[in-house]
């Protein structure tokens, strides 16, 4: 049965539909615009929608991290890359051939259709029992007990990424000067 539009559940449903619209609109803007800086804006819009979906999935902490890391860090990093590399917009517009467009549409559509088909027709078993409620406290406990090794490895990966980015950028500068 469907809740009425002005009950709290109905309003939550309307907000959920808006979030789906924001996510898909952002994805369209990110892939279909010609100028790269507009693509980054679309990516940020898409990530805001995805953060809202995470909130509906009962994990506000991951939603906040999505906003902080993706919208706040990754999109800004890509925007800096665009500003530093200043791609030639006119040539980007000229080089898109119709063949690559149709090939991309076929491949992406086939991927999305296959995954959606598998999702709708799969037999998903609900668990008999949940051993905890998935709150932030439980997440912190398992991050520092069960997954502590992975936690440390990820921090090393991030450190190496920072050092590697510095080394790569410096090497390019040396060759130029």
């Amino acid at each position, binding site marked *: 049965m*469907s*809740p009425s539009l002005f009950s709290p*559940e109905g309003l939550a*449903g*309307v907000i*959920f539909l808006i979030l*789906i619209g924001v*996510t*898909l609109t952002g*994805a369209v803007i*990110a*892939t279909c615009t010609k100028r*790269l800086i507009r*693509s980054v804006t679309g*990516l940020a819009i*898409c990530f805001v929608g*995805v953060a809202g*979906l*995470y909130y*509906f*999935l009962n994990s506000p902490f991951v939603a906040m*991290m999505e906003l902080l890391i*993706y919208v706040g860090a*990754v999109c800004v*990093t*890509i925007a*800096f*890359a665009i500003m*530093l*590399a200043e*791609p*030639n917009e006119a*040539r*980007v517009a000229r080089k898109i051939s119709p063949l690559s467009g149709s090939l*991309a549409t076929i*491949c*992406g*559509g086939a*991927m*999305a*259709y296959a*995954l*959606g088909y598998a*999702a*709708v027709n799969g037999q998903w*078993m*609900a*668990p008999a029992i949940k051993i*905890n409620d*998935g709150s932030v406290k*439980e*997440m912190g406990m398992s991050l520092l007990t069960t997954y502590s090794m992975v936690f440390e490895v*990820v921090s090393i*990966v991030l450190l190496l*990424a920072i050092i590697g*980015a510095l080394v*790569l*950028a410096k090497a*390019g500068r040396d*060759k130029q000067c």
Partner: protein
Amino acid sequence: MLTLSSQLNTYLIIGAILFGFGVFGLIRRPSLIGMLIAAELVLSGASINFMAFNHFLAPDPTVGQIITLFIMAIAAAEAAIAMSIVVAVYRNYKSIETEDLAELNG
């Protein structure tokens, strides 16, 4: 329509559509930064799937959230490395178009 947020299939299909958009952008974009943006969309579709299965099907609902956090960390590292590679490529070739990076063509 208003009870879509409590169904697993909704999230799985949104994830599939985002993944499809990512593949579409990876093939269609002629520049390195455009492909990086499309790759972020692919990662985001995978994260949505993890979070949906975590909420609806996992006996331990912290696993999917932690995996999503790790995916975010990997994506941030990937973006930083890709940005420095793009800058280095631009300094050497004065272009970030994939068709111009053909020095090994012979």
